[in-house]
């Protein structure tokens, strides 16, 4: 009798276990959208090399579908069919386009770029796709950075040559200042004027004329520096700054992955920090150049 009750209890347990298992599996699959109606769309690419069956289709970081089938067409193009769950169908409309993202770290995925409220696109429709390659982009972006750096070095060379040249306005100014200082040091008439001797007034005026000529020379030097040297350098630094900001933005997307890799991936972290530091430096440099280029007349925005 006791054995029979035990058998019944085990039987009930097994039934309850399987019912629970099936129920839980059903609920899990239902939550994952397995039983939802799926809508298929496709896109055409030149190559299938970046795509795999099951590759997620994401919207704002959430998986809303996946690639179901990849087939080679007669004309050599590749047709990739993917499906979207019913509740996310709203993101696929006539304004939607796809973006294949291949990040530096992590697996590639397809990003859906769209806004809701534009109706639905008929299932089986073709969607446009843009393929980006973050690694190659990064390399491509770094090439002009190197060019710009070389350009900056060239500009610095020009500045140095300009200043070192015997006939440069800066050298002329320096020579003028030297003459003026000598004059002041050797001729004490200026000082006697200050102390009250009126007779030396003519000499003071002569000295002031000399100051005028020096100031004109200084102004010429500044103008030459601004026009020929500072402006192109400033533009180059601005371009470099913009590129670095772009590279930095790309690194930001890597942040979570870098964190998950922990201390082992110090080189990526270091690179990110050096980009950040360079951005800050170029920022400061731009501010300094802006201060040099300031023109009294240009405090108001000149309407085009």
């Amino acid at each position, binding site marked *: 009798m006791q054995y029979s009750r035990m058998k019944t209890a085990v039987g009930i347990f097994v039934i309850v276990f399987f019912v629970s298992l099936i129920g839980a599996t059903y609920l899990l699959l239902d939550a994952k959208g397995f039983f939802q109606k799926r809508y298929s769309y496709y896109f055409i690419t030149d190559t299938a090399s970046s795509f795999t069956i099951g590759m997620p289709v994401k919207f704002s970081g959430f998986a809303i579908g996946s690639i179901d089938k990849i087939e080679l067409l007669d004309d050599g193009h590749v047709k990739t069919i993917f499906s979207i769950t019913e509740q996310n169908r709203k993101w696929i409309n006539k304004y939607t386009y796809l973006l294949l993202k291949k990040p530096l770290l992590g697996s590639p995925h397809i990003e859906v770029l769209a806004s809701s409220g534009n109706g639905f696109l008929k299932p089986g429709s073709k969607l446009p796709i843009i393929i980006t390659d973050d690694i190659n982009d990064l390399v491509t972006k770094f090439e002009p950075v190197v060019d710009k750096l070389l350009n900056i070095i060239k500009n610095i060379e020009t500045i140095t040559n300009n200043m070192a040249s015997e006939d440069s306005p800066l050298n002329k100014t320096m020579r003028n200042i030297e003459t003026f*200082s000598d004059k*002041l*040091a050797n001729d*004490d008439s*200026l*000082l006697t004027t*200050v*102390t009250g001797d009126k007779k030396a007034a003519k000499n003071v005026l002569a000295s002031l004329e000399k*100051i005028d000529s020096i*100031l004109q020379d*200084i102004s010429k030097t500044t103008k030459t520096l601004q026009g020929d040297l500072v402006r192109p350098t400033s533009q180059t630094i*601005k*371009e470099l*700054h*913009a590129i670095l*900001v*772009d590279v930095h933005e790309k690194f930001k997307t890597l942040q979570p992955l870098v964190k998950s890799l922990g201390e082992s991936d110090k080189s990526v972290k270091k690179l990110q920090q050096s980009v950040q530091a360079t951005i800050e430096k170029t920022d400061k440099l731009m*501010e300094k150049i*802006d*201060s040099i*280029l*300031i*023109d009294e007349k*240009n*405090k*108001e*925005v*000149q*309407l*085009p």
Partner: protein
Amino acid sequence: MKKALFWVLILVVFGGCSFKTEPNLWQYKSALAFESYKNDFLRGEDALAKSEYERALDLAKSSDDLRQLGAIYLGKCALDLAVGIKNECKEYAQIDELIGCKKLHNYFLFLRNDTKALQPAYLPSRYRRFAKALVQGDYEAAKRAQIDIEDPASAMIALELLRTHASKRNIEVTLKKVSFYGYKKGVVHLLEKLKNKTNDIQEKKRLEKKITILTKE
């Protein structure tokens, strides 16, 4: 004593020549950033232009005086108009009352082609003759005045304001000025305009070819 006085004098003379930081540095910087934006935008360097525009806006928002901010909004509106981008100057319209500056208000009316309320005397001097002709409805005089505008960006703005009244010569003269400055975005827009204006199929093809060359990556 004499030696001390000598050094004091030296310090005074050369101290006066040294650089001085202006307290309204934000204003200078903002104007400078806008100037860079203008050049970058017209040259088609959009990423740089965007960054400079945002910088100009940020700096202009440092003060309670909204004239700088208004001028930046209007400047962007004018440049968009110059290259055929639709812009109704909504950002400026929202702060027009707060600014209360006749110069900016009239420039705003000018961009909107509101000739009824426009007072040309408040516009930058290069536009006055052109605006006067527009107000009087004398498009022949306006066309002549547009050709005489030296600044390439201003010439493009005036050309857009002529709308359908602009002649082929107006477009060609403006194109020459804009090309000289290397304002790629403006050049492409004017070539498109010229293409639409001409009836000669060969000429159309020639212009189309030029556009393709300029816009090809």
